């Protein structure tokens, strides 16, 4: 039942955790605000739900919140009901049960997205502090315990008592609050010598506005214009670049306000939905964007509705007034906007991820007419590229290298070392190895190998380091042996703990080796590697086997334009092979295919009719090249 809420968890939820004991600044407008404390008492199972607080800013909002139909007690808070002129009927008013569940139970996130949905800022949810949540949880646990008592053979009293102790302790723990935590542990970024920019955990991947894809081009030209080393181009040439992008982006990059306004409908139809959504949300980005927001908020509202109703069940509490105030938001103070933004962004995150629509341009690399690069050419080309910041990189590396002997010491004292930071650490480690580890037994494990497994690491320890012959039933047995052998080197306690020490070694070195093994998505996924492996494998086979593969490859290429080509069925294939005098029995062919499959030359797939189909998982270009080459050889 320990559920220690962490700051990290809160950030994950996107909750804006206010420091406790401080009221929100309501931004004293001309309108008198009333602050009410609603004490909800609902029923959750057999016990009353713990009260939750919701601060409401105007009577209107209260009315909206407390629709007739549910139960609830309204207690006057600081402002007092009467002062606010709240209708008496509301005081015994009713509130939807879902608020209860959301606001104080489980998940603050949903409470936020719901309550703050009321965009005109009439309603603010005050979030339950960590301690309160904890209390609820432990309370509830206790109750459950009591309920289940009859069934239990255990001494439950003791358990309940323990739970109480826990919550007591937690109260005592309040003294070490989050502030404290941030001050002591989270302050890393601020006062660590190099990390000048104060990147707190929240700032890194906070729920911030996702940007439209077209923005990239814009930013690119923006970046291009920032003062650099020797920038000698005229800015007027730049709009041409983005303008060359196809339709959807085109309208975008020609960021002419007037034009946009006149072609509003068109704009709506072509711009990504999310983008419009974002623009309509009060934004601090730039003036031009606020202009957009005013212009397209209506359309947005409509689509908004359909979208939400279909995709988001949580949002069923939506009121019609929700988006009405969006255009007006320009006038409100920035601070408030910021508060709002967080909640909207949380919403947007889920919206963006719930829709399967893809809102990027349709351009493909194929149309770019760019020759695909293979690994080798890539390397050659990269070598031509001028290296940047060599002096600085060298200095950085020297800093790290000065720590070598310290690492060695700590390694000997039973700690393990983790290096982190941007950039390849391979060279650094290699240097460490050659300079300090020459005299000791050590094992280099290249973790970036795609095929690496625990077993292969352990095997290389036992077989090559310990000269052990034989296999093991399980990795754990193997581990036992290793431990036994090393007993004189390590002691028991140190074996069980890694004692990681973290060292930041940002090097900015390119991850050359590492990425070369990555089966990279990209462009360089070229045929040449595949082709060489193809020829290599096939040359080691018998002529018959090669013939079999050729047959399949030819059939494959014949059908390359057929999009519904399922592959060659085994029976057909067998027929063809027989006819070509390549095999004489079903079994020989199967054995041959197994070999192909082991070399990943073919893939089998079962069709809907249960028939086995054979496919070659190599792209057509490579296959053509291969066949041509084969023909030459013959």
């Amino acid at each position, binding site marked *: *039942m320990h559920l220690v809420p962490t700051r990290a968890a809160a950030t994950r939820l996107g909750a804006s955790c206010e420091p406790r004991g401080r009221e929100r600044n309501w931004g004293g407008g001309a309108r008198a605000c009333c602050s009410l404390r609603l004490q909800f008492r609902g029923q959750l199972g057999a016990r009353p739900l713990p009260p939750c607080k919701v601060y409401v800013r105007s009577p209107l909002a209260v009315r909206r919140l407390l629709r007739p139909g549910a139960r609830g007690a309204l207690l006057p808070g600081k402002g007092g009901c009467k002062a606010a002129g709240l209708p008496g009927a509301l005081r015994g008013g009713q509130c939807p049960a879902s608020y209860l569940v959301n606001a104080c139970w489980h998940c603050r996130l949903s409470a936020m997205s719901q309550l703050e949905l009321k965009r005109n800022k009439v309603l603010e949810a005050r979030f339950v502090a960590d301690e309160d949540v904890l209390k609820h949880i432990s309370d509830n646990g206790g109750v459950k315990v009591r309920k289940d008592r009859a069934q*239990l053979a*255990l001494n439950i009293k003791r358990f309940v008592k*323990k739970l109480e102790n826990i919550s007591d302790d937690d109260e005592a*723990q309040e*003294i*070490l609050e989050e502030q404290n935590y941030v001050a*002591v*542990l989270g302050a890393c*970024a601020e006062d*660590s010598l*190099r*990390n*000048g*920019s104060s*990147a707190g*955990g929240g700032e*890194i991947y906070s729920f911030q506005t*996702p*940007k439209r*894809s077209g923005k*990239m081009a814009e*930013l690119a*030209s923006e970046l*291009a214009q920032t*003062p650099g*080393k*020797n920038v000698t*181009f005229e800015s007027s040439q730049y709009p041409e670049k983005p303008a060359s992008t196809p339709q959807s982006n085109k309208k975008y990059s020609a960021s002419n306000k007037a034009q946009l306004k006149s072609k509003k409908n068109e704009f709506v139809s072509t711009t990504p939905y999310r983008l419009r959504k974002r623009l309509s949300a009060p934004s601090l980005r730039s003036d031009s964007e606020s202009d957009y927001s005013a212009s397209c908020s209506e359309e947005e509202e409509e689509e908004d509705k359909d979208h939400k109703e279909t995709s988001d069940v949580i949002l069923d509490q939506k009121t019609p007034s929700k988006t009405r105030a969006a255009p007006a938001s320009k006038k409100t103070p920035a601070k408030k906007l910021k508060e709002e933004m967080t909640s909207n962004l949380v919403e947007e*995150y889920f919206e*963006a991820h719930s829709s399967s629509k893809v*809102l990027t341009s349709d351009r493909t690399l194929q149309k770019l007419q760019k020759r695909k*690069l293979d690994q080798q050419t890539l390397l050659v080309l*990269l070598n*031509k*590229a001028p290296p940047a*910041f060599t002096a600085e990189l060298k200095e*950085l590396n020297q800093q790290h290298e*000065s*720590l070598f002997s*310290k690492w060695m010491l*700590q390694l000997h004292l039973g*700690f393990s070392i983790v290096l982190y*930071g*941007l950039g390849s650490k391979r060279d650094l480690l290699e240097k460490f190895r050659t300079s300090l*580890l*020459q*005299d000791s037994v050590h094992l*280099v*494990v290249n*973790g970036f190998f795609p095929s690496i497994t625990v077993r292969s690491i352990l095997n*290389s320890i036992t077989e090559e*380091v310990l000269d052990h012959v034989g296999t093991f039933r399980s990795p754990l047995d193997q581990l036992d042996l290793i431990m036994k052998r090393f007993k004189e080197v390590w002691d028991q306690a140190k074996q069980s703990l890694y004692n990681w020490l*973290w060292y930041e070694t940002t090097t*900015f070195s*390119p*991850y050359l080796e590492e990425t070369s093994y990555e089966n*990279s*998505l990209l*462009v360089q996924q070229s045929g040449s590697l595949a082709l060489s492996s193809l020829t290599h494998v096939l040359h080691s086979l018998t002529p018959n086997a090669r013939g079999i593969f050729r047959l399949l490859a030819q059939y494959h290429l014949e059908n390359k334009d057929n999009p519904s080509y399922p592959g060659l069925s085994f029976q057909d294939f067998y027929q063809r092979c027989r006819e070509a005098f390549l095999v004489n029995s079903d079994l020989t062919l199967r054995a041959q295919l197994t070999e192909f499959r082991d070399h990943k030359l073919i893939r089998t797939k079962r069709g809907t009719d249960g028939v086995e189909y054979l496919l070659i998982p190599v792209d057509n270009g490579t296959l053509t090249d291969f066949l041509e080459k084969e023909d030459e050889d013959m």
Partner: protein
Amino acid sequence: GAETQDSKPCHPYLKPKPERLTDYFSQGKNDSEDSGLRFASCQLLWKQINSETEKIQEELNKQLFDNLIRFLRQSHSEFQTKTTEWMCRMKSSEIPTAALVLGVNVTDHDVTFKSLSEVLQDNVTPYVVSLQAKECPGIKHLLQKLMGQLMDCYVDADSSEEEECVNISQKKIRCSMASLSKWYENVTKKTGSETPSKKRTSSSRHWQSPPVVVIFKDMEIISSQHIHEFPLVLIFGIATSPMIIHRLLPHSVSSLLCIELFQSLSCKEHLATVIDKLLLTTQFPFKLSEKVLQVLINIFLYHDFSVQNFIKGFQLSIVEHFYSQPLSVLCCQLLEAKKRVTSLSHNQCENIRSLPSFRRYVESQVSEKQIALLTEDSFLKEVTQTLLEDLHIYHENYFTVLRCLHVFTTSLPKYPLGKQIRELHCACLGKSVWETEEYESAIQLLRMLAKDELVAILQKCAEIFISPSGKQFSNTVEKLEEFLARFQNLEAEANEVQDVSVSSQKELQKKTDLYHLQKTLLALKESKRSKKLTKFEMLRFEVVDFIDSLVRSYLAPAEMQTLNEVVYFNTANTLREHLNAAPRIALHTALNNPYCYLKNQTLKSDVGCISNTAPDICIVYKLHLECGRLINLVDWLEAFSTVVTAVEGTDPEAVATDQVDEIIHARFIRAVSELELLGFIKPSKQKTDHVARLTWGGC
């Protein structure tokens, strides 16, 4: 080497050769003064501390283990007697089970279990099997493991006599409960005459991982049938609550278990003891500064609840201190330190002179002495000796007064200075505690303590002051005793005061008229306001003032002490970086603001912006932040080349030429692959030539 190394995932290098640790200690450090000595004292200190922690652990576990052992002995006493009593036990066929509630600090459990099985092996039975959830993915593995460990135990127990028998059975045996019981019969038959009291305990630990459920379910169903053949005792280790047994095991299984609960000490108490024994004592010369201690405690409270890790952190700070502070050579027992002072080199003397605390000290001296301190090494050494002694005395006093103050503050409502002594310790270490608001409010609250409470606290304090080498505190003890005596005397006087109040009370009761009542009430109020403080209140003030004076004179912050740098480790930053690193922040900073690492002026830019001369990966990263869930590679590439060509200042016409384009293309590919390796993007099949972004938001 590079080629062979790259072609294989693992590449071993074999060239063993003995080496000397001290070399690493001295290497790479400019001021390698006395490194050998420093290393030796570091090792010695750690050894002492380690043994101390082990001792603490042992003591803390003692009670628990004793209870467990008693339970185990009892559980199968029937089996030994083999009477009808035992028969009825058999009918119910319940397996005696001890449920060990250990708390959430899972990392520490290993040690606990290890010592537990050792204790059991020594005291109860040689047949102890300890199983871990992760070791037993299936029932088969579990039984194998069980058998294996049992056989090993067996060999250990009587290796000389029956090795042959074991060898036969070890591998061939079909791993089942049936064979297990057969084996047991076999063993007991042979060894029966010698050790009839042998019992078997299989202590299995499992944490809340669902796959274990299956294992135990099966096992218990089977084993219940065999319970009459061999005595089996289960021990479960439980992290959360005993309820979990019932949730994990179906009723049919749990009904076969006869569960008894054992509660281990909470990790917080454990930590408190460790801090008390390691930090709040003059036994060890090494001390942690406030910030370092805060870091360690916070890691404990917010991350793992592991005392083991706390101690590891402590070890790291010891190593760091001795490694980085050349003067740490003086961080040893006082007598030894004094001896070492005399043999300090000139460089070390200069090191002393450059200590901030020592400079403060020098400035407070008269000018002749200042000169002498700064020029004469021998004089400096003399002074250093006395200063070290002062520091030692300061610590002795500090801890005593700290405990005394803690007794006071724990009695206060809401604990303004913290409930635990460690919080008070932190408060006092960092700054002058009497200047803080919390202290102020604590004193205010102390002035309102009731008499019996105050007396009790004073008695406790007196005990604290008497117990250690209380030569400095004889005066204090006298004073405290005097206070206690005066409180005693107050008893008699108190009666008079009571009389007065009683009379006024009576008066109140007499009046029934509203007007008169009001009048008397007002009068009462008036009298109260003007009334002098009672004797008790006077005395209370005196006591509180006395405590206040103690605090002010003895609980000065450690940083103010001269030569505190010798024994205090205060680079909390290092510790935090190494123990609680923030790799994501480092990555983020490197990508967003490369200037932090590459000190090149062209990279300097405003917050949120990035120079276009930045490394490729930074530009690509920055561009990708502008995208939503999916990124079009073509757009990305185009944007990238726009930025890069702008930097190179190539004529836009020339951009079209293949050569430049190819290189940029290659650079782009590299940068994107790097981002993929770092886990920012992944290939997506939703649309051709698109990649999916794995982070949300940004910039």
